[in-house]
């Protein structure tokens, strides 16, 4: 398999100046420069690859840094450190403002959460789909119209709806517009940020099946961000689990959900309501996540909420270790390994 996107040790920090008055900030500046300002570690030392034609799921709770990670990958934000390689091209060096006009801009496209809110309300469906084509492919006139109509029909959007505005479309139709505008320029990697979160189950099914069909047709890779694990299980080949800026577990989707190794993944899987509940006592997380502002680099990020939480977790941050196709960042991953082996 060829690697399409290679992400290495990417981190993204935001300054968190809040909480300090101007005088305190001035004193800080005097005593040691702006580096001493507290920082939110939104994405912290994250590495993974996406292969050609692969669907990778990214799961985690709100505030864990999914969106920040995705925004650095799509180059809407600049990285603080690390490298993002698309094929042979290093993308992280170009500032995001310059990248907007880059020749590789079209290769990574994004489908946003709710097309009703992410599409310009004054744009008709046609305008919305044609905008990236105009800017990135420089299409005009008849060729533009033809291209828009081709993509619209590929996404199952009736052509007579192209003249409508977002508020005149149903949720499912809006989702189709969002997908059509992203695939119009022929990207290699499509980043989907909870594309079905705002939809009813009956519509969600249709959109998920459309996505799978488009992938088969065009051989795109997907990075699918979601907190709905049952959807991720159906659509994704591989899954990355994120907690407070770090990847805590990754591996083939079916395996990770069947035999989660990291205690956070275990709690996440246990929390998903199932149609046929087996009545097994479920693992519950207590408390709130740790603060992402200047976290102690020697404490496991999950410490405090983790049902284990031993002395070792407080003194060394567990590294992401590989076990076959899977990676886990927990000191005690080995204890759950026998289950996986006996099952496979």
């Amino acid at each position, binding site marked *: 398999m060829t690697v399409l996107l290679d992400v290495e040790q990417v981190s993204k920090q935001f300054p968190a100046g809040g909480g300090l008055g101007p005088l305190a900030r001035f004193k800080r500046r005097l005593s040691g420069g702006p580096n001493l300002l507290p920082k939110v570690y939104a994405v912290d030392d994250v590495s993974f690859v996406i292969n050609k034609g692969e669907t990778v799921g990214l799961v985690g*709770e*709100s505030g864990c840094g999914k969106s920040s990670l995705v925004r650095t990958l799509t180059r809407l934000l600049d990285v603080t450190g690390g490298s993002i390689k698309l094929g042979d091209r290093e993308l992280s060096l170009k500032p995001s403002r310059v990248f907007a006009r880059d020749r590789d801009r079209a290769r990574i496209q994004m489908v946003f959460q709710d097309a009703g809110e992410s599409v310009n309300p004054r744009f008709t469906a046609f305008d919305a789909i044609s905008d990236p084509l105009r800017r990135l492919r420089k299409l005009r006139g008849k060729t533009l119209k033809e291209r828009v109509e081709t993509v619209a029909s590929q996404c199952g959007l009736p052509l007579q709806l192209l003249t409508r505005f977002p508020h005149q479309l*149903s949720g499912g139709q809006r989702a189709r517009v969002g997908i059509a505008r992203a695939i119009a320029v022929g990207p290699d990697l499509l980043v989907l940020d909870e594309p079905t979160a705002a939809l*009813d*189950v*009956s*519509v*969600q*099914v*249709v959109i*998920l*099946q459309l996505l*799978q069909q488009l992938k088969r047709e065009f051989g795109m890779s997907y990075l699918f961000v979601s*907190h*709905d*694990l*049952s*959807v991720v*299980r*159906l*659509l994704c080949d591989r899954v990355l689990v994120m907690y407070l800026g770090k990847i805590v577990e990754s591996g083939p989707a079916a395996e990770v959900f069947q035999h989660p190794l990291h205690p956070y993944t275990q*709690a*996440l899987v*246990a*929390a*998903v*309501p*199932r*149609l*046929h*509940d087996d009545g097994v006592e*479920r693992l*519950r*997380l*207590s*408390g*709130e996540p740790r603060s992402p502002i200047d976290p102690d680099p020697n404490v496991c990020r999950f410490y405090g909420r983790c049902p284990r939480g031993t002395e070792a977790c407080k003194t060394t941050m567990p590294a992401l270790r590989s076990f076959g196709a899977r990676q886990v960042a927990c000191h005690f991953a080995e204890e759950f390994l026998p289950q996986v082996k006996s099952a496979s």
Partner: protein
Amino acid sequence: MISAPALSVEGLCVEFRTRGGIVRALDNVSFSVEKGETIALVGESGSGKSVTAYAVMGILDPAGRVTGGRAMFGGLDLLSATPSQIAEVRGRDIAMIFQNPRTALNPIRPVGRQIADVLIRHGNVPRNKAQAQAVEMLRAVGITDPVRRAKAYPFEMSGGMCQRVMIAIALAAKPSLLIADEPTTGLDVTTQAVIMDLVNDLAKELGMATIFITHDLALAGQRSARIVVMHAGHVVENAPTREIFEHPRHPYTSELIAATPDSAASLDELASIPGSLPDLRRADLPPCRYSERCPRKIDVCAQPLPQSTSGSGHIVACWNPLPEKALLTPTESAA
């Protein structure tokens, strides 16, 4: 089933006057909830779940009008009661948890004060003791450091904590009926599980009847004893949870189950529901509002809807329902 139900809704009809015409949002909605029982109202958006709750609570939008039916709570018909009668019951005996805690809470009042307000108004708690009791309520819903948190404003708290505050407000006066309108949408699954545990435990402790409104069939199944399935303002099926999942009888219920991601092993197996909700403004709405999407439609479907009840109180409003506990097609039995 012998004792009087906590709430019994019979033949509830609600209309909304809009510029585009009259929307018949609810038509002949009936269900009841026993004391100490948890039932779930399930349906897609636009099916009338929330409108049902609002009508029962007497907080419908001014454009909405109850055109028929009764909602018996104790000896009182909530739909024909005077505003002052309802105001006495609402908040004290019937409480509601709203969908979005951030917008439902008062943004310019500390959360402890908001709980105290309810205690003073409905809980017969003297003013000087209310604040202390509010802190106790916060502790009971699992908020750490409640003394400090009682002084916090909603914007200073996370979504999960705001939802806990909402629950504390709803339960402040120890109601006998709780209506939870999508209490966990917008929360993470891990938080959702904790919040639902909390609601379930408190309901059990206080012996409350709970009406739980959700679009998530799997969550409803996990948390309630009985499921009421709604579609376009109709109750299409009402049955014990286990029966609904194992032997759904209304075609819509069975398709809804087959569309839930959890029910299939791969995406291709997942079935979609063809068509969409009918326009409820239409004058020529068919008696069965599902008939235009229904794969089992027959001629008699043009007749007024039947209400058939079979053993264990399995109610289905359909002329041609799926067979009772019999041959299931593979899609329905897939787990």
